[in-house]
């Protein structure tokens, strides 16, 4: 079989196979296909940077051009992972600098990146094109200056939601005048304080980038500069504005409105910091073309939001604050029949009393009016089982459903019952559900429903729910497709964990914080499962300074062929006995 086609033919055939899943399947057919495939694989995605080492990656795939890595667990977004935990990209970049001189793309999420690393990236890869740093940290504008100065063919620089220290220089001026290759620039996470030199550097950069299609600016870019920028980039497809406020001046308004109407390709809008409602109509001319609208920084009343949204009949994605209220969501449901994704964020989550009228009614209305709805993230203060039944009945096509009722353990506010039945209806009806986040008052029954019905569920987030180990056991034993499970403040202990130890090897990771998992159980798991890394995060001091039955603060378990990591800080303990002995 292996001799019937020359290698070049197979390689050519494989070049049409793009998805990682298919590539993996190809590599398992036989040894020679494995060999051919590994030499021609160009792209890799590693969902947990500690699951494998750079050396192993390089040894198997010697010719990669594009590498994506994820570091910290998801709950790091909510401050549950102490600083210094890990996720350093430096060892990867060092190794790749030697092994992949032709690397073109690097995409990182929740990793720690230093200025030195960025400088190394900018100097090691002559054909470097794409840098995406999503929720990363550890670098400053000096690191960005290296990238700007040295990457001659840079196409994409995307810093989405990263934490960048602004040292006040003007790194944008470091892009040489000869750099005209930019297609995408996202600096929306940068600060709100900028020198005029940076602003004019941005204008010049935009002016000499004929291929620029995605531009997301930061709050420091004032509204009166926006019109000029738009006129220099009329082919923009995605725009993130800077601050959207200014003294009201008819000239500024008409200039802006004119500039927007010149951008006929615009499909996505975001930004809108400090928005003054009187300026919103400046975008009306391009609303009918918009497919994506992010108003999550727009502190504006429902009526103003509705005036804007009802003009966007082709909207597919809307992110908005709860200022939109139920009435606004009803209007959305009437106007935007192509809506696929809705995210409603809380404007004041810590207020004792609700500051807006956003209830379960709003989401029910959208589920009724928007036949293509598949992805929901909804923060609110009250919900009912009935509403969940209705949503499940209306939208069996939901693939992502994340409901966050702000106060933990809130029951159905009408019947005062747990929301088990409601979420049960969601998992039973929405057979393609891949991601689910639970909230409200929940007993083990909801986990029974999930284990029984949520067969395609890949990611589950649980907080303040359940009665005991049975709940966790239902999930681990029933959810066949589960890859990521994150749990906080639930009364889940050792039994379910130990009974389903093998399941953990089929998942990317399990996070349990403020639960009832004992140190004893963590040790056992770590010792018995060599292909799992079991890490205890506890800032109270060494776990063996307390009784072994004492619950640990956090246990983070992930499958790995790299063995225990060696860059753990003082508050993380590995359960690998050998390593622990070596390090002590």
């Amino acid at each position, binding site marked *: 079989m292996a001799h019937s086609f020359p290698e070049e033919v197979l390689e050519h055939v494989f070049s049409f196979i793009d998805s990682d899943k298919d590539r993996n399947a190809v590599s398992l057919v036989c040894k020679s296909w494995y060999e051919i495939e590994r030499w021609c694989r160009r792209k890799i995605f590693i969902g947990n940077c500690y699951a494998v080492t750079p050396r192993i990656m390089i040894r198997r795939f010697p010719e990669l051009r594009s590498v994506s890595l994820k570091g910290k667990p998801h709950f790091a977004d909510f401050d*549950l992972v102490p600083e210094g935990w890990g996720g350093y990209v430096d060892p990867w970049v060092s190794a790749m600098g030697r092994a992949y001189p032709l690397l073109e793309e690097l995409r990182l999420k929740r990793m720690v990146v230093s200025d030195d690393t960025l400088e190394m990236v900018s100097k090691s890869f002559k054909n470097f094109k794409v840098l995406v740093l999503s929720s990363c940290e550890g670098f400053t504008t000096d690191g960005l200056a290296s990238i700007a100065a040295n990457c001659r063919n840079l196409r994409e620089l995307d810093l989405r939601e990263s934490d960048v220290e*602004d040292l006040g220089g003007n790194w944008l001026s470091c892009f040489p005048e000869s750099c005209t290759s930019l297609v995408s620039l996202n600096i929306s996470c*940068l600060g709100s304080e900028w020198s005029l030199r940076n602003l004019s550097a941005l204008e010049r950069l935009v002016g000499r980038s004929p291929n620029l299609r995605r531009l997301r600016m930061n*709050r420091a870019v004032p509204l009166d500069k926006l019109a000029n920028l738009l006129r220099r980039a009329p082919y923009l497809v995605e725009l993130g504005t800077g601050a959207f406020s200014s003294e009201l001046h008819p000239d500024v308004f008409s200039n802006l409105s004119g500039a927007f109407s010149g951008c006929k390709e615009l499909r996505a809008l975001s930004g809108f910091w400090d928005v003054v409602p009187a300026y919103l109509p400046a975008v009306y001319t391009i609303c009918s073309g918009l497919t994506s609208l992010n108003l999550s920084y727009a502190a504006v009343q429902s009526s103003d939001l509705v005036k804007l949204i009802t003009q966007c009949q082709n909207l597919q994605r809307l992110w908005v604050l709860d200022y939109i209220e139920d009435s606004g969501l009803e209007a959305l449901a009437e106007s935007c029949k192509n809506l696929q994704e809705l995210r409603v964020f809380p404007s004041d989550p*810590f207020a004792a009393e609700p*500051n807006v009228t956003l209830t379960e009614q709003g989401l029910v209305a959208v589920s009724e009016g928007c036949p293509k709805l598949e992805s929901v993230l909804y923060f609110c203060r009250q919900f009912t089982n009935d509403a969940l039944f209705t949503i499940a009945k209306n939208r069996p096509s939901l693939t992502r459903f994340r409901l966050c009722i702000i106060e933990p353990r809130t029951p159905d506010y009408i019947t005062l019952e*747990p929301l088990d039945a409601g979420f049960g209806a969601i998992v039973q009806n929405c057979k393609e559900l891949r991601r689910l986040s639970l909230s409200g008052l929940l007993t083990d029954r909801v986990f029974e429903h999930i284990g029984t019905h949520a067969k395609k569920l890949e990611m589950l987030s649980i907080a303040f729910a359940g009665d005991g180990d049975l709940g966790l056991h239902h999930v681990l034993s029933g959810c066949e497709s589960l890859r990521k499970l994150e749990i906080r403040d639930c009364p889940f202990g050792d039994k379910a964990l130990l009974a389903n130890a093998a399941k953990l090897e089929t998942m990317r990771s399990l996070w349990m914080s403020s639960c009832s998992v004992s140190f004893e159980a963590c040790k056992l798991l770590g010792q018995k499962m060599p292909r799992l890394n079991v890490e205890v995060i506890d800032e109270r001091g060494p776990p063996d300074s307390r009784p072994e*039955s004492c619950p640990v603060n956090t246990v983070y378990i992930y499958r790995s062929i790299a063995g225990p990591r060696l860059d753990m800080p003082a508050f993380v303990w590995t359960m690998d006995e050998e390593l622990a002995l070596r390090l002590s």
Partner: protein
Amino acid sequence: MELELGLALATNPTHGFDLNSNFHEHKESIGSNRLTHDENVVKKRTYKQAFYHSSKEDEEIEFPPTLPLLFSNQPNDQDDDPNPHDNQSSLTLNKNEKNGNFVMGWPPIKARKKSNHHGHRLSGNPMAQSGLMNSMYVKVMMEGTRIGRKIDLSLYDCYEELTMTLLGMFGKCLENVKNYRLTYLDREGDWLLAGAIPWRYANVCLTYYLPIWSFIASARRLKLVRSNV
């Protein structure tokens, strides 16, 4: 799509790999890490039986006080008490005197970190931070002093409190408050005398529809200057 790292798992690895029963044994058989397949199947059945008193799923599920597979001799409190209203789990409360009791990292909204803070906190601020009111560090200089300090504006409630604290930071005694004035660098890059605008809550000037930013949202840097009195 995830890369499969060639973790060659057996046909259905999740069947009955139950480490609970292993717990007593592990102290004796440290060398052997593997359970046989038969052992696995047997243990799974026992485990299931331990949880269910009958085969009917609708019936009330009762938890026996101790299970033969329990590794610890202490009864498991959570199992004995199926009452969902009891607070069994350990909440990680993050107490902050200014803001009452908050649960760390809840609700799950992405936290904006320190280096990015300035000016994001208006009343009714979008993308509000997790748990604590987020810190708002600004640099402070004092006229005549070379070395600056940093201060967290979110910890203070009024100008007087801030000024007193700053004087203390620079080692001036509080009688000196008359000799110094607090100035700040605002959003537009101008140095202004502190005290004219509201401390915390933003306003809108209704006549001209101008936003009036609060002090803590506007201040980028602080400087104590000697007053000319």
